[in-house]
């Protein structure tokens, strides 16, 4: 678990996350990620081979549980006019984005 992040890793992860990093940002990201991951590496000291992962604390005993799921019924949603007004570009019915497919 002491895998060191490389310049290529930073580039690949930035692509996955849809982030653009300047060369200066990439350099400081490389440094910061390695420092933080070094700190995280101490989790390797613990033997967790028999421990189930905990994704939601509500599954713990006495933690309050979750409410019943609501009925799968059609309910009014947000008013389209109000929603569309907040988007950068729309035709009032759809969100508009740069062309994806050339015809």
């Amino acid at each position, binding site marked *: 678990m002491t895998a060191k992040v490389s310049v290529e890793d930073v580039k690949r*992860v930035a692509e996955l996350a849809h982030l653009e990093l300047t060369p200066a940002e990439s350099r400081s990201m490389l440094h910061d990620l390695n420092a*933080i991951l070094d700190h995280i590496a101490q989790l390797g000291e*613990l033997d967790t081979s028999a421990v189930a*992962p905990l994704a939601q604390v509500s599954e*713990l005993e006495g*933690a309050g549980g979750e409410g019943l799921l609501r009925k799968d019924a059609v309910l009014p949603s947000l008013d389209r006019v109000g929603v569309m007004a907040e988007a950068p570009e729309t035709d009032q019915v759809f969100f508009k984005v740069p062309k994806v497919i050339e015809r």
Partner: protein
Amino acid sequence: MTTETYVEKPKTLSELREGIASGRVKAADLAANYYARIEKVNPRLNIYLSLTKERALEQAARVDATAAKGDPLGPLAGIPVGIKDVLVMRGAPATAGSRILKGYHPPYDATAVGRLEAAGAVLLGKLNCDEFAMGSSNENSAYGPVCNPVNPERVPGGSSGGSAAAVAANIAVASLGTDTGGSIRQPASFCGVVGVLPTYGRVSRYGLIAFASSLDRIGPFAGNVRDAATLLGVIAGHDPCDATSSPAPVADYAAECDKGVKGLRIGVPAEYFGKGLDPEVRERIERGIAALKVAGCTIKPISLPLTRYAIPTYYVVATAEASANLARFDGVRYGYRSPSSATLSDMYSHSRDEGFGAEVKRRIMLGTYALSAGYYDAYYLKAQQVRRLLAEEFLRAFTDVDAIVTPTAPTPAFKLGEKTSDPLAMYLADIYTVTASLAGICGVNVPCGATKAGLPVGMQVLAAHLQEGTALRVARAVEAAEIQGSRTQDAIG
């Protein structure tokens, strides 16, 4: 201590409510007075990002009309309250402290916001915070840092820095903040106010701009424990709009906190008093613990040896969830879109690059890395396993004690700029708060004296899931001893 201080204690809810109910105080005048003080204080401290005057004055007029008719008033009737800017309010801008949401006006109210207003609260405006609630000093806000009202050269803590500072400076009687790894408790500690971390699921997250969904919680800030308890009672409870909100009944928290602490068993974990703890903070917390003993508590030394794994666990879980949650900010449906993009893919990355700040990018990168192929088991799965161990360690401790007390933060408020160049040092500021975040248990920050330089020290009182009443009782006892202590000091001095 600097002469430039903006600290002012808000009146209590019961004082204000009595005035409004009797007609001696008009809610409209009270709101106007708060807006006048905001105008005076905010330019220096940068606490409010936007004001919702029209909505506030309409609500105040409704409260005054109800009071004039002699009709029953809600528990927060006419009380001026501020809202952290990661919670949405219909018609008001919601920036989450980010450039990427500049100019966004959400079309609905968060459940907690709606419940406050239904209880009569007058919502003054939106409070500054770290971008997407990521930070421990409020210096990650795209709209500039908040200054601590106690000493404006110091940070207010984060990420709910504006929420804590608003109450400390009395430009809100109470406020809402959010806590993912300590973002209510730590700023409450730095600013010398009460802040409550409710049990995970106790308060609906509907309308909260998500950072890490399995950790995010909404909670109140107030000038005293009882008032914070009253606010918690208003916002707590199941909400069909948040499937993780708990159906457990809501206690009368305000009544709970007056029950006294005689016979309660208080655990003091050695791991929270080790290396890195400021000696003055230690001394104040030990004095607070001594006061609890005098009040009739049994003090028990305990050990929580997994504590040191909490920060690494937290920064894997929180960043992984953040990287998924923040994928929605892509310049399509709301917020900022970069103007110069030929392709869809460029539009996504340009918008995100120009819209997000450095800390948010760092966390998205870390989270994406931890979730990426080949690393998932080593980081994310591992952290979720350690998270269970940490939670179980707390649950075992709570079979022997009713509450656990610790310092909220290892130091008092640090200086603006002091930690901005070292992300890891900033993460370590959360060392005493992330444990409860991971375990989902509840807690309260209660002011517990001040350093010689006049900086507030906060005690963290933790209790098991849904035992907010117990945490508030203990906090109330510490608060009572503090008030008693300062009276004695005044009498001597």
